[in-house]
């Protein structure tokens, strides 16, 4: 099965689509404001005519490419192409401004490659045993795991945890209309025939991810016009021997990125922040961080690329997306009749191994593409928003329309786009919304099955220690920030009284 998977990933068609995905991912990732999630959502309708393997490999390529492409604009414009490159701006941009842009890009590209490859190895070694373990868990455990994932996503999302949870619940609610899977009841269809199937995944994703982002970009246009690009040709890439002193940082940051990626809901931006912070703690020269230090770029880029591989572990083995972008990958798999989860290794082992191999190949392709075309990419990042927004919107309309040949889906996309824009204005994170939307249906199905088995008693969870531990983690994640906030308020009051 492993050999078959490798051969599938190495076939000419598969390599072609992985290359197309990686190249387009790198380009889109490099353009500030356009992310991998946006491109993946846009590419989804185009994959309908493709084989499931090629479709998934294209999307994996986009995912890997976009995370890496962000480092170009982060380094040359001080504008992270993707949120995961935020930490790269701290040292990449000062290094470039100090006359070493090639060095900053070289460090970033090399670290991205190593982080990605190490996470790919972790994926290959951890996914099979985890899927065997996952086979032993039942509906209680799965429902509790999804609940934990939702709380975790909300708790770690940027801004307030309450808003994160609000967003996750709103996402679950958006998935409610239509036919309830468990008993075939129609809910919230408002007598609109198109609503009987509920809101389709693609229009919702395009709306929340792309349309809201486009509207934000229009608002940011003035800011973006002020950005100045740093000219290339001032320095050279770091020499191979120089990498020796970064081995520890690379291994540690890749491990952090992979581990953080495995945790449901924690995106690549968090992993690069954690890796950056730890690299600074372990560094002999922590005061150089933020001024154009090699170690900062290495930590950030190794971790954010490793996160992609780490996040694929729960996606493949449990069917739980690690981050919103993985939710799109999950949606694509479901659309192509591939059900991620514990049985995937048994039912579609060749595809899983092909995915793992393609992930590794995509990382190598990403490195080669970026090394070979970073000069051209540095020009692409300056495409004005006034051309990008209308063009991307037209493709969104085509994408939404094409899934069912009906304008209803286009209206749904627009509606969710406006909702996403308003939520963003209210500083409500959108990641939990998408994960809530994707996980609502399996959560309800598993919970109802579990309750059927226990005659409707929630207390039956006591007989399921694994499920109980997942719920305990969820409760802890919810309560801990509240307690921390309460104690900080109390200490502030005491300080006030003391003064």
């Amino acid at each position: 099965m492993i050999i078959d998977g490798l051969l599938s990933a190495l076939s000419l068609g598969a390599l072609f689509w992985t290359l197309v995905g990686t190249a387009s991912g790198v380009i889109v990732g490099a353009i500030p404001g356009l992310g991998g999630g946006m491109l993946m959502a846009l590419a989804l309708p185009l994959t309908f005519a493709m084989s499931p393997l090629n479709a998934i490999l294209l999307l994996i390529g986009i995912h890997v490419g976009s995370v890496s492409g962000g480092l170009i604009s982060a380094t040359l414009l001080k504008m992270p192409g993707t949120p995961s490159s935020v930490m790269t701006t701290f040292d990449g941009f000062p290094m470039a401004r100090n006359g070493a842009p090639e060095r900053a890009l070289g460090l970033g590209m090399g670290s991205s490659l190593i982080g990605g490859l190490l996470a790919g190895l972790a994926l290959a070694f951890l996914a099979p045993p985890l899927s065997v373990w996952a086979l032993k868990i039942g509906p209680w455990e799965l429902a509790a795991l999804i609940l934990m994932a939702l709380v975790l996503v909300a708790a770690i999302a940027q801004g307030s945890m309450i808003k994160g949870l609000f967003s996750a619940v709103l996402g679950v609610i958006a998935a409610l209309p239509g036919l309830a899977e468990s008993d075939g009841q129609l809910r919230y269809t408002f007598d609109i025939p198109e609503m009987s199937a509920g809101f389709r995944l693609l229009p919702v994703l395009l709306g929340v991810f792309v349309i809201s982002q486009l509207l934000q970009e229009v608002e940011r246009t003035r800011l973006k016009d002020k950005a100045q690009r740093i000219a290339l040709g001032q320095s050279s890439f770091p020499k191979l021997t120089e990498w020796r002193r970064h081995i520890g940082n690379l291994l540690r940051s890749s491990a952090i990125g992979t581990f953080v990626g495995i945790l449901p809901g924690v995106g690549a931006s968090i992993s690069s922040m954690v890796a950056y912070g730890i690299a600074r703690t372990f560094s002999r020269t922590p005061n150089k961080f933020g001024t154009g230090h090699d170690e900062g770029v290495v930590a950030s880029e190794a971790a954010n690329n490793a996160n992609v591989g780490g996040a694929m572990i729960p996606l493949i083995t449990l069917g739980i997306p690690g981050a919103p972008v993985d939710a799109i990958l999950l949606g694509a798999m479901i659309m192509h009749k591939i059900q991620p989860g514990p049985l995937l290794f048994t039912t579609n082992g060749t595809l899983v191994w092909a995915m793992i191999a393609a992930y590794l190949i995509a990382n190598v392709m990403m490195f080669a593409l970026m090394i070979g075309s970073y000069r051209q990419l540095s020009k692409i990042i300056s495409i004005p928003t006034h051309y990008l927004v209308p063009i991307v919107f037209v493709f969104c309309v085509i994408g939404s329309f094409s899934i069912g040949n009906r304008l209803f889906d286009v209206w749904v996309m627009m509606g969710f786009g406006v909702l996403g824009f308003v939520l963003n204005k209210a500083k409500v994170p959108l990641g939990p919304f998408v994960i809530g939307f994707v996980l609502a249906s399996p959560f309800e199905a598993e919970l109802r099955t579990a309750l059927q088995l226990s005659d409707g008693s929630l207390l039956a969870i006591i007989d399921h220690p694994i499920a109980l531990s997942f719920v305990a983690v969820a409760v802890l994640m919810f309560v801990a920030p509240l307690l921390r906030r309460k104690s900080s308020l109390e200490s502030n009051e005491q300080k006030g009284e003391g003064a």
Partner: protein
Amino acid sequence: MIRKPDTASLIVLALGLTVGSGLLYGAQFIQPPIFDPVGSAALPQACAVALIALALGEFLAQFSKQHPDTGVSKDTVEGFDLITATVAILMIAYIGLMQLGLGFEAATLSFVMAAIPVIGRSFRLLAIAVIIAALLAFGAAWLFSTIFFVDLPKI
């Protein structure tokens, strides 16, 4: 000092109360469970209660985020940009035109020609906008209908 609720929390509260109460109202019309103990109304009801509670929680929590002297919250929402609102209206109009029976090509041509100068805040972009609009409208229509076999809205 009088503490004012910030706009972000008001949006969350309004959305939470509207969606939550709507869900609770709609749950009454869902058939009671037949063969499972929970039924299809349980999750919507639970979500509605959670949403309302979270919206209220956020509304009350904002006061602790406010600056003690100025009463200004860090979650204050910036005003809506006129250009963004115009672009959103153009997007809606574009879909509306197709809904009214205008074909993909004509609607796309109109939308792109209008949107580029508006977003770029310059009517000098109109010439380039016409070229891009024509390429996109006729090129995309040809590409999707001939290569990808995707039907686009027709007149």
